[in-house]
């Protein structure tokens, strides 16, 4: 059935359930049990959990709602509408690392690849041993939450009909590199393998928050304020009592800033992501030595290999194959990714006719990437124009991991039959043609400036710890500074994970919301 004739979960929402800040003319002042800030993985999950427990919930989202039937395959259009700063944010340090985040209903789940990983055992152990979180965040405590989310969001391994050649090559050839390649598990139902997850799913197959928990919550009585930016959390008498927001716009330059005040009788859930949450807390008057510190990431690096036969990246699950065999030993995870030509161009060597000719060989390209569980830590501060300044430099051991993974990818591409590999590392030839040339990658300098890194998995900067001396958020998910101000995104993670973070974020958000719903604070005084 064509998109025109399908009814998508984000169609026909209850009247009045969506208040669009972009067209808002009059100020708003309303009261709910809970206000949830952000509609991404964390916010969507918290909202749905609270709604199911019978509470009235307002969700406040800075970006617009990009409906399934409006999804545009053109990358620039998608970046303009759905990505923060139109996809031009960066981590600033020794080198400049592009940073991608969704800014729309569904947050980064609208533009991500829907890869699912439960929190690994060793992370639970580390959080217990080094961070004292063992009384709250345990495998046993999270198990029912992971299971429920997996069932609701139809988690399963990529099916044959959506696998595509890019993913198949990786799965079938991984053994030649001495490791196990597996099909990814993803949140999706009816994936058509359109390889378009990064610009939004045109089929509503990917179970982002925009087509699952958010519309489900609205159908059960919640309301969402889109294009509404939370300026501060209102804290009175040491307790969160609501939020002060103002209307925004798809393009923030055109925001009219109509006031939106939402009172929260029982509490505020902050789920604005690792990057935005710390500065919202700062603007709200929360003070803590760890706020904005200990920011962590999984910087990534991609490499195309050119095959004689057609790979046709435009067909297949955007990301569908992976290995975690190197996660513990070398702190990285290998994945496949299919990129539209507009995005792949940055991975193609050269300029001018050479570049354009190479662009036309993309149908023969497979692209494989690494995500590094980096040890580096950075910081987040506010900067001009209400933006966030993220300072971050890769540590030397992170670059060792990056280089090793790059060589491994190149090797595996050749083992799989590639005739050329384009390493994209300054100082290494733009094109290498044999296994022998992989030595050149192994000998590359460890300077992050020479590598084309990118970051989309983000952690820390408002970490959880038992005492205020060690962290911003307590074991009850409430900030030490204010009761009823629950932080449920990955800013509370004391470490990064080494696996894709969405499932851990959702599991924790569900655990937090379930606990708060079961024993909420008393109704706040008006």
């Amino acid at each position, binding site marked *: 059935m064509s998109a025109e004739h399908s009814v998508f979960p984000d169609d026909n929402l209850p009247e009045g359930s969506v208040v669009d800040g972009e067209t808002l003319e009059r100020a708003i002042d309303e009261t709910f049990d809970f206000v949830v800030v952000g509609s991404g993985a964390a916010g969507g999950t918290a909202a749905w959990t609270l709604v199911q427990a019978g509470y009235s919930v307002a969700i406040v989202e800075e970006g617009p709602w990009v409906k399934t039937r409006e999804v545009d395959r053109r990358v620039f259009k998608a970046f303009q509408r759905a990505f923060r700063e139109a996809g031009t944010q960066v981590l600033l340090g020794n080198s400049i690392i592009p940073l991608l985040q969704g800014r729309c209903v569904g947050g980064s789940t609208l533009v991500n690849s829907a890869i699912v990983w439960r929190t690994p055992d060793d992370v639970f152990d580390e959080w217990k041993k080094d961070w004292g979180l063992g009384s709250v965040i345990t495998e046993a405590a999270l198990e029912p939450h992971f299971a429920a989310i997996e069932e609701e969001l139809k988690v399963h391994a990529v099916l044959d009909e959506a696998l595509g050649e890019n993913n198949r090559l990786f799965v079938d050839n991984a053994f030649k590199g001495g490791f196990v390649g597996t099909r990814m598990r993803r949140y999706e139902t009816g994936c058509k393998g359109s390889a378009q997850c990064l610009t939004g799913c045109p089929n509503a197959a990917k179970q982002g928050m925009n087509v699952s928990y958010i519309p489900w919550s609205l159908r059960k009585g919640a309301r969402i304020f889109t294009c509404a930016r939370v300026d501060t959390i209102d804290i009175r008498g040491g307790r969160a009592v609501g939020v002060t927001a103002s209307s925004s716009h798809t393009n923030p330059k055109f925001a009219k800033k109509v006031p939106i005040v939402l009172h929260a009788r029982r509490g505020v859930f902050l789920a604005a992501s690792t990057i935005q949450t710390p500065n919202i807390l700062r603007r709200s008057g929360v003070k803590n030595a760890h706020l904005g510190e200990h920011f962590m990431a999984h910087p990534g690096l991609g490499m195309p290999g050119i095959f004689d036969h057609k790979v046709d990246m435009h067909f297949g699950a955007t990301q569908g194959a992976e290995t975690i065999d190197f996660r513990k030993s070398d702190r990285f995870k290998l994945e496949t990714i299919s990129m539209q*030509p507009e995005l792949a161009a940055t991975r193609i060597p050269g*300029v*001018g006719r050479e570049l*354009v*000719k190479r662009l036309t060989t993309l149908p023969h390209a497979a692209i494989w990437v690494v995500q590094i569980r980096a040890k580096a830590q950075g910081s987040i501060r506010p900067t001009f124009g209400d933006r966030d300044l993220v300072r971050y430099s890769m540590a030397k051991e992170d670059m060792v991991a990056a280089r090793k993974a790059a060589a491994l990818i190149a090797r595996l591409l050749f083992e799989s039959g590639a005739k050329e590999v384009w390493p994209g590392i300054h100082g290494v030839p733009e094109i290498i043609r044999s296994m022998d040339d992989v030595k050149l990658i192994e000998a590359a300098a460890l300077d992050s400036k020479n590598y084309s890194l990118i970051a989309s998995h983000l952690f820390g900067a408002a970490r959880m710890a038992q005492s205020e001396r060690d962290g911003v958020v307590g074991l009850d998910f409430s900030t030490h500074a204010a009761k009823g101000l629950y932080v449920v995104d990955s800013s509370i993670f004391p470490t990064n994970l080494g696996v894709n973070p969405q499932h851990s974020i959702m599991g924790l958000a569900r655990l937090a919301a379930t606990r708060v719903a079961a024993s909420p604070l008393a109704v706040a005084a008006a």
Partner: protein
Amino acid sequence: MTVTPPPTLATTTHGPKAMTSIEYTWARATLGTIFPAAPEAGITLGIVDMELAVFIDELASALPSLTWFGLRMFLIIIALSPLFIVGRFATMAGLGEADRDRVIGTIGHSNIYLVRQMVLALKATFAMFFAGGEELQAVCRGREPDRSKLVALGRKTAA
């Protein structure tokens, strides 16, 4: 050596202009060197044959002011760089194809990080426009280009 005549401004009338007319000329010279036509590979439209000025204006509006300012500076610096790279007292627009290629190649491969980042940033940003064009999309999807879309992109000779 052939000297390409200074390119003209985009033909389409549209909203507010993001740059001065000389900057559009420089942008066409620089970006046209990064993304030229390659008829031998089936790409008959270079970025200058597409509605580049319209895209530039849309980009300027979409990006945070500081980011747009940075890109604009990169375009200006590269346009004025030939003196230092090919020793010619000219802007990019006043150079022939071979010299333009040399300038962009030298900057793009510079051992100075911030220098080569200029070309990389322009490549990444304008690929969103160029590689979104009908011809490349058709090649990458293994189908024939839709001729009506080529005309819509504004190739002056295609009508």
